[in-house]
Every structure is written in structure tokens, then in C-alpha cells.
């Protein structure tokens, strides 16, 4: 493990629920409320200046069904950190990171499209890859695999 990641782990472990390494990436599972404080520390104290992506994992049947996964990269130290936040199906929302990273504006829209995760503080969660009128969230496990929502009526005789 690099010195930087060791320092990150040492300083942020109290805010996280454990820490581990996976393929050279430091993984920090955290509670929902500490997402923004942890990321703010990563950005200001450890130079994680590049927000790579936000996506989610659907674990059907588990009490905290969705796992929101953020990736960050430090262009100073060349290391990555993964932050995992579990949220429940009834209230699948986390705080938005637009106050820290402007690029979060768009990546959170995609995550909202695909998994229906709400991002408190993102002012514009319109569909970005899907279209207006699309019902449901296609990357959730309970979305029917072959369900299509065509925008153009099919021709006569075509199904």
C-alpha cells in the first residue's frame, strides 16, 4: 500500500466502517451521513482532485438494498479510493457531491437514470442517457430483462 493510502486509511478509518484494499484501490465503506465529510477530507487533505465515477450495486433482498459506489483519483499521488455507501430501498438517496466536484452533476444524473438513486443537492436530475417518459430504472435487478419502451410506434405486423 502506498504511503498516501496508508495515511488516508489511518485518518479516515474512524469515519468509515472498516477499510480494505482491492486491486490497489483503498475501499472505504461508510455511513450515508459521512459521505460528504469523508469526500471533503479526501479532496482537501489528500489531493483526490479527480472524481472518476459514481455508480450503484443492487443487492435484492438485503435490508440496505443499494450500494452507491464513488471512485476518486489523485492526480498528485496517482492512487485511487473507492467509497461505498449503503442506502435502503425506501429512501435511496445520498448527498450530492456537486458542491465539491462539478462533474458530479452529470455522473449523478446517469446513476439516477439507471438505479433511481436520489442525490440531494443536485439541481438537475433529468434523464441523461434515458429519455423523458421512461418508466423504471433499467439496471435494477427487478427491471424485466427484455422490457422495451419504444418511442416510435412499430409498423403494422411487427411485434
Amino acid at each position, binding site marked *: 500500500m502506498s504511503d498516501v493510502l496508508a495515511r488516508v486509511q489511518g485518518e479516515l478509518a474512524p469515519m468509515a466502517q472498516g477499510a480494505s484494499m482491492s486491486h490497489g484501490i483503498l475501499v472505504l465503506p461508510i455511513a450515508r451521513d459521512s459521505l460528504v465529510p469523508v469526500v471533503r477530507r479526501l479532496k482537501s487533505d489528500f489531493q483526490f482532485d479527480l472524481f472518476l465515477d459514481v455508480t450503484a450495486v443492487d443487492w435484492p433482498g438485503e435490508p440496505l438494498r443499494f450500494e452507491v459506489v464513488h471512485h476518486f483519483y489523485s492526480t498528485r499521488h496517482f492512487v485511487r479510493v473507492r467509497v461505498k455507501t449503503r442506502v435502503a430501498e425506501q429512501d435511496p438517496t445520498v448527498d450530492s457531491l456537486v458542491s465539491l466536484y462539478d462533474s458530479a452533476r452529470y455522473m449523478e444524473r446517469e446513476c439516477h437514470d439507471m438505479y433511481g438513486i436520489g442525490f440531494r443537492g443536485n439541481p438537475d436530475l433529468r434523464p441523461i*442517457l*434515458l*429519455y423523458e417518459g*421512461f418508466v423504471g430504472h*433499467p439496471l435494477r435487478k427487478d*427491471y424485466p*430483462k*427484455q*422490457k*422495451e*419502451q*419504444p*418511442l*416510435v*410506434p*412499430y*409498423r403494422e405486423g*411487427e411485434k
Partner: protein
Amino acid sequence: MTAPAKTIPIQRAEPSRAFEFISTKKDELIGWARKFSLFPYPFVTACCAMEFMAVSSTPYDTDRFGAALPRFSPRQSDLLMVVGTVTHKQAPILLKVYEQMCEPKWVMAFGACATSGGFYQNYAALAGIDKIIPVDVYIPGCPPRPETVIDGIMQLQDRIARQRHPILTKEF
């Protein structure tokens, strides 16, 4: 004194008896003209574009079939080449392009995705463009070999040559 410049004397040609006129059918004549002047509109959305470039360029050369000059305005084209995956989000655009093309027009589904959706069977992909617009020739392959594309163009030419071509009224 300079000699006057020599000129070729203009002579009235004797009227020839050969090839004064030919007889053909109107549909055959128009079809022959149209099949060698296809103006493709490339609706290129995905990786098949690479194969489209390969078949357009020198080694395979679709110009031999009169189908080389892409027109990027649907108004000026008569062959809609749908090259690549079409998603449900793009489907209205494809339909609009098709409707903007003037008659006569033909449609080529280039590659597995345009033909049937290919291996995409999910929320995003349209499972074949023939669900929304009529298709004249399907080219299989993921992506198709240039030879396959050329075969497709030739089949389309045969089809055009055999078609009726009303030019003045519905009947003629």
C-alpha cells in the same frame, strides 16, 4: 506569305443505318439508370462504421457500383444505409430522416444490429430497424465483410432493376 492554316474539312456524315434508335421498356431504362446512381445517406451509429469506411475506400471501392458519394442531407439521397445499433432514443431521429428522403428511396440494414438488434435484447436497443421503417436489403455480419456489403449492394441493384418506376403518374 504564310500558307493558310490547314483545317479539317467539315463534311456532312452520311446517315447511318446502325443504332438510330433502341427499344426498351420504360421501367427497365429508369431502373438501369437508378441502380447505378445510388446516393447513400450514411446513418452511422456504431462500430460497423469502420467496415463502412473499409468498403467505401480504395481496395473495395463502392464507386464501381455508383454508390460512392454520400449525401449528408436526406433530401439529396435515395439509399438510407443504417450502419450500426439504433437505440430507442435514436429511433425518432431515424424515422425523421427516412421521412425526409424523397421518393424513390431504399433502405439498407447494415450489420446484425440494424437487422435484428444483434446481441442486444434489452431496454436500450431497437431490435431491428424494420420495426419502424421498411427495409429493402439486409446485410448480416458483426461487422459484415466488405464482400458481403458489395453483395448486398448488388442485390439491391437487382431489386431496383426489377422494380416498377412510376415517374409521371401512379401508373406510368
